[in-house]
């Protein structure tokens, strides 16, 4: 299968039309919510409270038993320690004694040792009955001390010795002792933690990316503001970031901006922003095509051109931009904020990015190779002291893929334009908001994408509200 056929199939798949959701669908869906959440929320709360209570009770018992045992250890003479060793050796055999067997062995031991063994057995019984998180095997939270030492062992030394003990580490009871012998403090910590639905803490890496994005955004904003200070339009295209900030402020105040305050070209340029990487040349021209971002019906596409001048000084003079639309391939087209009559600049300012958009309607059946548009930038290079021409073309295949396959810059610029049009009264606000959210999710480091997502959602909820806010 050749690339043309592939592109054609992709185009047909991507352009599958879809109506808007019927009125009331969202309400119908929301009406199902309370039944579910009330039932599951209460159950979950009861369950988590139950588990927390069990763990706290178990921790309390273990603390008590440990304290009693330690006290007994401190008060017992060495001979009794040897007797306990004999009992322990006979009792904790490698043959996995069961609890009844252990109880019988303890009962047969000298009376003086019974008190200690009973405390141990009680700990085992308590742990087995009180501990909520088991896999079926009884868990002893504390263990018998080592028997072979003459000096009085500490609790920690006893636990370590149990883990290394020659006697019975394979049986259920003693094996679990060796494996799961946390000190009481650990059990207390565990008991204090809600076992289900842990809140996702922000990852440190994400926080660092966020900080970096914020710094980059601030830097970009400053750079953009410096451009605004030198002039609001370039090639007749508004590059004034203040337009966006005023619209944003209006929305954040709960008001919808008035239609005439929305300069779509300014929004396009705000969201297109600076290039992700510093271009190698003093002047670069980007040209890109795609289907329209929302309401993909018919053969509508977006043509974008962006001129970047990364150098801080003026490097291009007597610049002209020309967009030639091929009428053999395009039925209709309209500039989005671009004033074709003002397509010349005496000098392109440095550290500048200028983006223009055209919406085109492709003729039916154009081939992938057919030329759709040509963008030509002519200027006098200050550094080289000569005329330069950059010319780039868009063809049918450039509009065949999904909009989501376009570059992030293109998606931001085109979606910013469509969003601006919804602020002026066009429909599809909900779909714009959804696209913006997808874009923000795919580009978590891009502050502009997040802004567009947030504000598109805000304005979508205001749909139907007349614009009252003052803007540009």
């Amino acid at each position, binding site marked *: 299968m050749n690339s043309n056929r592939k592109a054609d199939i992709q185009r*047909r798949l991507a352009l*599958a039309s879809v109506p808007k959701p019927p009125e009331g669908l969202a309400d119908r869906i*929301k009406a199902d919510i309370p039944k579910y959440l009330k039932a599951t929320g209460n159950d979950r709360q009861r369950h988590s409270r139950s588990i927390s209570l069990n763990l706290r009770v178990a921790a309390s018992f273990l603390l008590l038993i440990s304290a009693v045992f330690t006290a007994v250890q401190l008060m017992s003479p060495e001979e009794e320690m040897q007797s306990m060793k004999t009992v322990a050796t006979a009792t904790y055999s490698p043959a996995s004694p069961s609890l009844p067997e252990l109880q019988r062995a303890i009962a047969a031991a000298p009376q003086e040792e019974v008190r200690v063994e009973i405390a141990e057995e009680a700990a085992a019984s308590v742990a087995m009955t009180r501990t909520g998180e088991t896999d079926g095997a009884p868990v002893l939270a504390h263990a018998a001390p080592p028997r072979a030492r003459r000096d009085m062992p500490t609790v920690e030394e006893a636990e370590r010795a149990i883990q290394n003990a020659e006697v019975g580490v394979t049986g259920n009871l003693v094996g679990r002792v060796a494996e799961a012998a946390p000190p009481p403090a650990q059990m207390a910590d565990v008991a204090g933690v809600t076992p289900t639905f842990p809140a996702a803490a922000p990852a440190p890496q994400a926080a660092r990316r966020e900080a970096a994005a914020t710094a980059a955004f601030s830097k970009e904003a400053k750079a953009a503001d410096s451009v605004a200070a030198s002039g609001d339009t370039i090639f007749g295209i508004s590059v004034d970031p203040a337009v966006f900030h005023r619209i944003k402020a209006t929305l954040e105040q709960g008001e919808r901006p008035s239609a005439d305050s929305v300069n779509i070209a300014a929004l396009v340029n705000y969201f297109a922003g600076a290039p992700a990487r510093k271009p190698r040349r003093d002047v670069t021209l980007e040209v890109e095509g795609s289907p329209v971002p929302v309401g993909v019906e018919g053969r509508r596409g977006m043509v974008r051109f962006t001129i970047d001048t990364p150098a801080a000084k003026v490097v291009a003079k007597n610049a002209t931009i020309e967009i030639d639309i091929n009428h053999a391939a395009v039925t209709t087209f309209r500039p989005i904020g671009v004033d074709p009559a003002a397509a010349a600049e005496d000098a392109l300012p440095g550290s500048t990015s200028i983006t223009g958009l055209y919406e085109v309607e492709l003729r039916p059946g154009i081939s992938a190779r057919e030329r759709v548009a040509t963008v030509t930038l002519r200027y006098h290079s200050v550094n080289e002291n000569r005329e330069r021409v950059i010319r780039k073309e868009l063809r049918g295949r450039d509009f065949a893929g999904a909009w989501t396959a376009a570059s992030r810059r293109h998606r931001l610029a085109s979606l910013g334009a469509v969003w601006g049009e919804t602020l002026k009264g066009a429909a599809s606000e909900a779909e714009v908001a959804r696209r913006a959210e997808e874009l923000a*999710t795919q580009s978590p480091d891009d502050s502009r994408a997040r802004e567009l997502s947030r504000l598109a959602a805000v304005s979508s909820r205001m749909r139907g509200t007349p614009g009252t806010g003052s803007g540009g």
Partner: protein
Amino acid sequence: MTEQVSPAGEERKLLAAIRAGDTVAAEELVERTYSAVFASLCRLCGDSDLAADLTQETFQKAWAALAGFDGRSQLFTWLYRIAYTTFLNHIRRPRRMTSLDEPDAIDVRDERPPADEQLADAEEASHLREAVMRLPEDLRFTVTAHFWGGLPVKEIAEIERITTVAIRKRLHKAFSILEGMLGEEVR
């Protein structure tokens, strides 16, 4: 001015709130996603009324399955999976088979300039949908998820537990099969 929480973090917070029984958070989830779920289902079944019913059914299943969502994929990706399965279950139900030959019931309430046209008439759209539905399941899901669900390749790879290269191979294979079924010619 700048958001302090990433979109992924916001999604996690939203999910945590819903799991804790916050109905406002659940409604926000609906507002964010229902139109996209509807659009996907509409492209799958070609009937807006049926798509609306399936959308409602999708969210009913989503509430019940929320506890099992592990957050590996994006929320909409998970929802799309449920929607897709809901659609398949619907067409497999006895006495409720959705004929793929039914004409589209597209209600275009469009306010854009009249110069806009639909890419294909209802018959062509139905033909395309029928061809897609005849693809093998793995290819069909990949094609519909990417083109009609709007899921990026990476997300599809995540929920399918395979590589992005494998997803792209699936797409390529699907195009080959569709070409044969549709009888495409370069014009």
